[in-house]
């Protein structure tokens, strides 16, 4: 299970404020606690700073790379921003994200190839976001095809089927879960990924819905996720689901996480 740690996101007030005031300590701390909690990649996002996204993200990247040795996940839909950040990276990164929309696909794929980056690919095209499982799987095929044509092997691709709030689209989670299973089966070698917060929009105790969805997704074959690894209940549900699914031999990782007090 590949964990992309989501906390350094400028849509969070504390992050935006520390970026604006140049307070590197907050960012450094966020990077360290996520690395300690079990992150594989640290997501970095400066999307809230319209028109100065690149400059702000450069600063964040510098601080995070100084604080931890993990690779980064560049969270921007803008090819120019991604292009500006990639040369600064010490390790092959992840790019978050591409879609089938030409402006969010064509300029980014060659960059991914050049820097051997993993890429998060959303099931979304110029016609809209995939809603049914069929649409999601069809777009996954297209994304893999486009990536491979550009020279990016499917093993570097993490397809996100997109999940909508269960509160407003009751069958959306079911469609996403079905898509995860079918993508894994129909496109061997490609990875699946999912953001978890969208699913719980509009309901109380959102985290409970988020982690229930994560468990369901792992059962259907999800092998990477964007989440907050410092959330012990979420991380615990994830570790437990992996153990139940036979992906943690003798539960050794589960036990290790327990000893390290990373799960609850």
């Amino acid at each position, binding site marked *: 299970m590949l964990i992309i740690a989501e906390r350094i996101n400028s*849509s969070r007030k504390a992050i935006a404020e520390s970026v604006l005031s140049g307070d590197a300590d907050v960012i450094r701390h966020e990077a360290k606690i996520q690395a300690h909690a079990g992150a594989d990649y640290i997501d970095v996002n400066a*999307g*809230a700073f*319209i028109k100065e*996204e690149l400059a702000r993200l450069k600063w964040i990247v510098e601080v995070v790379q100084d604080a931890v040795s993990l690779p980064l996940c560049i969270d921007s*839909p*803008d090819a120019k921003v991604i292009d500006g950040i990639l040369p600064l990276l010490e390790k092959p990164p992840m790019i978050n994200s591409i879609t089938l*929309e030409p*402006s969010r696909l064509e300029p980014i794929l060659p960059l991914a190839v050049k820097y051997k980056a993993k890429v998060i690919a959303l099931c*979304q095209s*110029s016609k*809209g*976001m995939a809603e049914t499982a069929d649409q999601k799987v069809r777009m996954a095929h297209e994304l893999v095809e486009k990536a491979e044509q550009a020279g990016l092997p499917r093993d570097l691709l993490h397809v996100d089927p997109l999940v*909508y*709030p269960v*509160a*407003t*689209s009751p069958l959306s989670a079911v469609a996403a879960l079905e898509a995860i299973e079918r993508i894994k089966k129909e496109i061997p070698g490609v990875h699946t990924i999912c953001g978890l917060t969208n699913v719980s*929009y*509009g*309901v*109380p105790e959102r985290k409970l819905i988020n982690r229930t969805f994560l468990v369901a997704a792992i059962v259907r074959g999800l092998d990477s996720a964007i989440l907050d690894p410092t959330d012990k209940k979420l991380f615990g549900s994830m570790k437990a689901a992996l153990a139940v699914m036979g992906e943690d031999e003798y539960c050794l990782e589960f036990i290790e996480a327990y000893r390290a007090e990373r799960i609850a």
Partner: protein
Amino acid sequence: MKELLNTIKEAVINRKRKEIEGLVDDAIEAGIEPGLIINEGLIAAMDVVGAQFSADDIFVPEMLASALTMKLGLAKVKPLLTSEDQPSRGTILMGTVRGDMHDIGKNIVNMMLEGAGFTVVDLGVDLTLEQLLEEIENLKPDILGLSALLTITLPEMERAVQEIGDKGLRKNMKIMVGGAPVSKTFAKEIGADGHGADAAEAVALAKRLMGE
């Protein structure tokens, strides 16, 4: 009569989707005017629901279920209305700006606006400027509502507001904007007439823009 209207109002507030049609039928049979059923039963209920949502007393899905209940009731009454007593608070054209596919928030706002008695025409997502201008000229709405969820599409919103103004289409039409990255400050900067932070605020704003 008062009692029947109150029952309808309560049914919408309490999301009684299965009971609403029967209750509206009862009211119609009792000879209550369709306009009254709508204004003092259905729409009055949605005013309460909007206030409950603003006060964090209810959650989004509960608000949606009320709106759905309201719509079911409205569908029963509408055929009885003559064209002159079609009560509309105003026509609102809604859409998500170019490059942006997000519509969940916009659709919630649509439902609440309809619930409040506005006529809503939804143009969908990823709207080109040409489409927008054409629909504005065709429909001549009282209000245009623009939505965006991505920070990268905010400049599209700015451009749309600018162009619509340049074409002189804002004389009889107000523009309201919304979406997660849209702030009051941004709305002011781009010269929109108002910003709603959530569905209830959008409804209150629309009423205000209509001069109510």
